């Protein structure tokens, strides 16, 4: 089942084009990371998927599923106490107080916020608020979990706990998040979408990606690398070159380069 489908969708806000020519299909159970620079349109895409935003043009279809949403910045002005807030939003989703109290106690222990349960959210630290944002979405037991920069403000323990929680989710639950950090992407995402200037420029399933290595080397002449089968070649000046090669081929390429008098500056895994 498709959770979300967009065909040449466009989103403008106050006359500014934020997303353009968006064609995308998201299936149930996918774990997707949306990456891109600040202002590229990641959060807008996430809100378009949730239904918080509607398309301005093109076609968008969403499956009628329960969604949980974690904003990038948890609201600063909520005066309710943490537990009171979580119970109320949980009740809005149709859960009983008894059920919620037990679940909140459990999540509070896991995310280390038990001591703040009776503190007004307004007085909580940024990290605690961020955890509240995650807990409220998890309490809903959504079919689709959408998180906007979920690691912002989280300490290492909370980051690990979030990852544990995400791994413990049922496989049928779709998880979509925006991120800058590679931690969550590497550890959890199976598909990466990259947004640049409002356009989807990269969409790949990480599991199917060919593993690659980047070799940075200086060469005596440009002709030295003519025989090398590289995935990409990027020159930095006259003699410094960056080659992206298949992981299986990297040893062979390195030998070839050394034999031709090249000097290896750096070898790294391609992300």
């Amino acid at each position, binding site marked *: 089942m498709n959770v979300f489908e967009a065909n040449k969708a466009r989103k403008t806000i106050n006359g500014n084009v934020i997303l353009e020519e968006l064609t995308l299909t998201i299936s149930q159970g996918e774990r997707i990371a949306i990456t891109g620079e600040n202002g590229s349109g990641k959060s807008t895409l996430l809100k378009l998927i949730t239904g*918080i935003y509607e398309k301005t043009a093109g076609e968008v279809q969403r499956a009628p599923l329960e969604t949980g949403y974690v904003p990038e910045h948890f609201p600063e002005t909520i005066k309710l106490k943490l537990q009171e807030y979580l119970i109320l939003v949980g009740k809005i989703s149709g859960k009983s107080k008894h059920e919620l109290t037990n679940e909140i106690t459990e999540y509070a222990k896991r995310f280390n916020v038990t001591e703040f349960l009776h503190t007004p959210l307004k007085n909580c630290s940024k990290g605690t608020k961020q955890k509240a944002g995650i807990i409220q979405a998890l309490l809903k037991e959504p079919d689709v979990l959408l998180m906007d920069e979920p690691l912002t403000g989280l300490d290492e323990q909370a980051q690990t706990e979030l990852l544990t929680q995400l791994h413990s989710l049922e496989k049928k639950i779709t998880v979509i998040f925006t991120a800058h950090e590679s931690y969550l992407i590497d550890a959890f995402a199976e598909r990466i979408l990259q947004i640049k200037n409002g356009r989807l420029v990269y969409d790949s399933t990480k599991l199917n990606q060919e593993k690659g290595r980047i070799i940075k080397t200086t060469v005596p002449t440009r002709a030295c690398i003519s025989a090398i089968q590289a995935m990409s070649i990027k020159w930095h000046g006259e003699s410094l070159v960056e080659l992206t090669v298949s992981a299986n081929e990297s040893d062979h390429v390195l030998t070839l380069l050394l034999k031709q008098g090249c000097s290896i500056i750096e070898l790294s895994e391609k992300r």
Partner: protein
Amino acid sequence: MFAFVVYQLKSFGLSLKFIPPATLYFAWVFLSYAYKNVPILSSYGSTAMLLYPIMLWMTMALFHLEEESEKHILFSHLTSKGRYLLGKWLTLSITMTPLLLFSIFYPIVTSSFKGIMSFESFFIGVYVHVVFAAFGIVVGTLFSTTNLASKKYSWLTAALVVVVSFSAQSMIEAAAFLQWVLWIFPPVFDVLSLVGNGEGIFLNTSSMMNDIGVIFYLMIGFTILVPLYRKKES
């Protein structure tokens, strides 16, 4: 929906933003009945009129209560933006109830009225208070949840609408062509005519037409607000 209304009432209560309009209203009611033996309908008319700007103030304060991110979280829990709007209106109805009850029963309890309260006067009193409160909610919602809300001078424009509503009749008397423009503003004088003309007019044909017009205005107003709100939240 009930949980959302409770959430709104708690947040609104903790924000203390209801205190200035509520205090002003209670003070107005106390002042209105500072003297005894006041006429029933015109006194109710005077307290009802103030409920229009007071409920506009309350509406705008309630709709400005949340940051965008809080609103987005609530959307996800409510599963519909329409429920959010409906929940806000229900919260406002609950918020206006103590104000309405106070202005209806305070003069009765303190025996401030001249003469004996009839059922018709009581009914007209409740009716005009509810209608003026509804005018406030409609205008307040218009300047809080539609694209007019993002304009820099939304509070000022909302206040201007209240002023124009109250001065519409004088403006039309001065320049008759304005009636083609001013019909868009809440029909304040159609409601006030009920309390200004004394008892026994509520079931008159012309009065009935006015009342139907007012109720129709409110129904259209609330209905039009829904797509305008959805457009802003898209």
